[in-house]
């Protein structure tokens, strides 16, 4: 079920909310769990069992690790066993085809295999589970003895399918002690509508521009069109994914939870290092806490630090998808971050901010080419078009058409991806209870946004979130 679907907005969500607020405190987690399982089963009826079995296995594993904490060796064995099982499950469903396909490509014969469809959200909930298991082992959190609370942590529908990846330590207390307030609920609704608008009104519209360019024959794409296509995807993925995260945070607030922010205006960054502090923050934090730091982080020799960075970024690429272009995308960022760390960062600091800003955006856009291309070969072909190889000249009518017919859209996208709009709105319209008139205007603005989204949703086709495939 999509957040941006009529059935979610007008059936599922109202029913869950009503039930949640009607039942006594002790039953609230049951409502959340049942609702989340229905939400997941709506699109993945077969894989609901995988999730339930996974919850049971990890719940028991957590207990096993906790009881062995005094005998560290035993606890370590249990931890390793758990991590291996979880990674095998993720690996089997996500990487079996990629691995065997890659092996078959170099072998003189084919190893037969049968690829199963990817269970939606498996990368997200596996990482959440691992954060719990590892933190129990590290004694950073108490083991969860209440299976209902643990199941709610794993399945909670606001962030189940596309994150943010909520680390157990951040939500541990909230699972049994949280306070729902009207202020939080209202703020949650605003977050949700803002996210829905980002997805429906901006990401989907921008996606159309990207699709138009991407569907063109290579020989008909000018340098200008290729860059506009790439820019459209750059905005599409930002508004799509950050929109989803806003909706997840908003839904969390409606149910009394506080999730950390997942995006912080990444396109205003002036270096790649800064960009990754602002983009998909929950994934970056996960890799930092559970891979990079355990490997030694930057408190090791230069050689080992380079190894650590490359391992983390290759895994980040692989996490996004079982294909060589994602591996390349991860390594690309690993190399850029190393170059910045060891050579460029001081120079970037001295450059005029507009120059470092352009530097960062261009590199991020090049990175997205690896991301949106179905194969590594396609990515390289598209990059060639961006530098004028094999295309249709520098500027053509098509490129100018994309610019002129969507002029207002580009302006909205540019300003919308910076803090300018939000700051202006906060300062002059969002009253936060200070003025009744401002509060009314605020309601009207959000109501209009919501109506526009619904008007679009009832007429448009299926538009899943880009991050659903991970």
């Amino acid at each position, binding site marked *: 079920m999509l957040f941006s679907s009529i059935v979610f907005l007008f059936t599922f969500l109202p029913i869950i909310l009503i039930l949640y607020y009607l039942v006594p405190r002790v039953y609230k987690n049951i409502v959340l769990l049942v609702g989340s399982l229905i939400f997941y089963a709506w699109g993945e009826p077969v894989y609901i069992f995988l999730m339930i079995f996974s919850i049971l296995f990890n719940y028991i594993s957590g207990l096993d690790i906790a009881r062995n904490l005094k005998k560290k060796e035993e606890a370590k064995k249990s931890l390793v066993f758990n991590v291996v*099982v979880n990674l095998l499950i993720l690996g089997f469903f996500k990487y079996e085809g990629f691995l065997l396909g890659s092996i078959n490509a170099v072998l003189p014969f084919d190893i037969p295999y049968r690829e199963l469809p990817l269970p939606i959200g498996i990368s997200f909930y596996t990482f959440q589970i691992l954060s719990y298991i590892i933190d129990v082992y590290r004694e950073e959190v108490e083991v969860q003895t209440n299976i209902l609370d643990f199941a709610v942590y794993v399945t909670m529908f606001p962030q189940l399918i596309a994150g943010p990846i909520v680390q157990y330590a951040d939500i541990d207390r909230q699972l049994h002690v949280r306070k729902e307030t009207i202020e939080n609920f209202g703020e949650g609704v605003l977050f949700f509508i803002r996210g829905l608008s980002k997805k429906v009104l901006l990401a989907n519209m921008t996606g159309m521009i990207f699709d138009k360019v991407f569907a063109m024959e290579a020989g008909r794409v000018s340098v200008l069109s290729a860059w506009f296509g790439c820019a459209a995807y750059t905005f599409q993925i930002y508004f799509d994914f950050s929109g989803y995260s806003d909706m997840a945070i908003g839904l969390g607030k409606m149910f009394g939870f506080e999730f950390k922010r997942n995006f912080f205006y990444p396109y205003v960054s002036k270096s790649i290092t800064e960009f990754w502090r602002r983009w998909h923050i929950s994934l970056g934090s996960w890799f930092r806490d559970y891979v990079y730091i355990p490997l030694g982080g930057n408190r090791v020799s230069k050689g080992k630090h380079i190894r650590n960075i490359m391992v983390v970024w290759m895994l980040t690429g692989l996490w996004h998808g079982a294909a060589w272009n994602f591996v390349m995308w991860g390594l690309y960022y690993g190399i850029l971050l190393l170059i910045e760390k060891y050579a460029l960062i001081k120079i970037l600091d001295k450059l005029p901010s507009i120059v470092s800003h352009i530097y960062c955006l261009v590199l991020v856009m090049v990175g997205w080419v690896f991301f949106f291309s179905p194969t590594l070969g396609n990515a390289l072909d598209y990059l060639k078009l961006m530098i004028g190889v094999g295309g249709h000249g520098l500027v053509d009518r098509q490129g100018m058409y994309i610019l002129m017919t969507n002029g207002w859209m580009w302006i909205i996208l540019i300003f919308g991806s910076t803090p300018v709009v939000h700051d202006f709105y906060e300062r002059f319209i969002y009253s936060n209870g200070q003025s009744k008139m401002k509060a009314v205007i605020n309601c009207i603005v959000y109501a209009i946004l919501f109506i526009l989204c619904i008007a679009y949703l009832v007429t448009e086709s299926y538009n899943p979130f880009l991050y659903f495939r991970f």
Partner: protein
Amino acid sequence: MKKNGMDIINILKYGMVLVIFVYVVILLVGQGGDAPMETVQENILSVVKKEGMQEAGTQEFKRYYGLNANDCEGVLLYLPNDVMGVDELLLVRVRSESQAEAVKDAAQKRLDTQIESFEGYGAEQTKLLKAAILEDRGNYIFMVVGKNADKAYTAFKKSL
């Protein structure tokens, strides 16, 4: 937690791993796809908007997919009813794994041909074709192109 010398937590833990393993094997062998053709067909057609498509027969299946419908256990095919349309629905219940491969390859080839035909001038059609869903589950091969692809796909998955 030990009872009569037995470690219940470990038994449960390894038991769950075994359950997950058996579950995956079941998925691989059956992929849950043993529902009757009529049921699956009925469920899919109840959610698909047929505007833009018309039901096709064995001849069209042969013509566009190069396969004999009689070799399969069941075939449901809807083709675009307009030269500029791309809405399409295919559901095939196969007899063997090798046949499943052949049908899937034929469906992929059909999609590739369609994309080649529309690429360059039919942006909307190309977008729909690139978003086509082609999947094999159990004894079924399922392909759908169109705005309501997700609804048909969900109905397909739920039927199995």
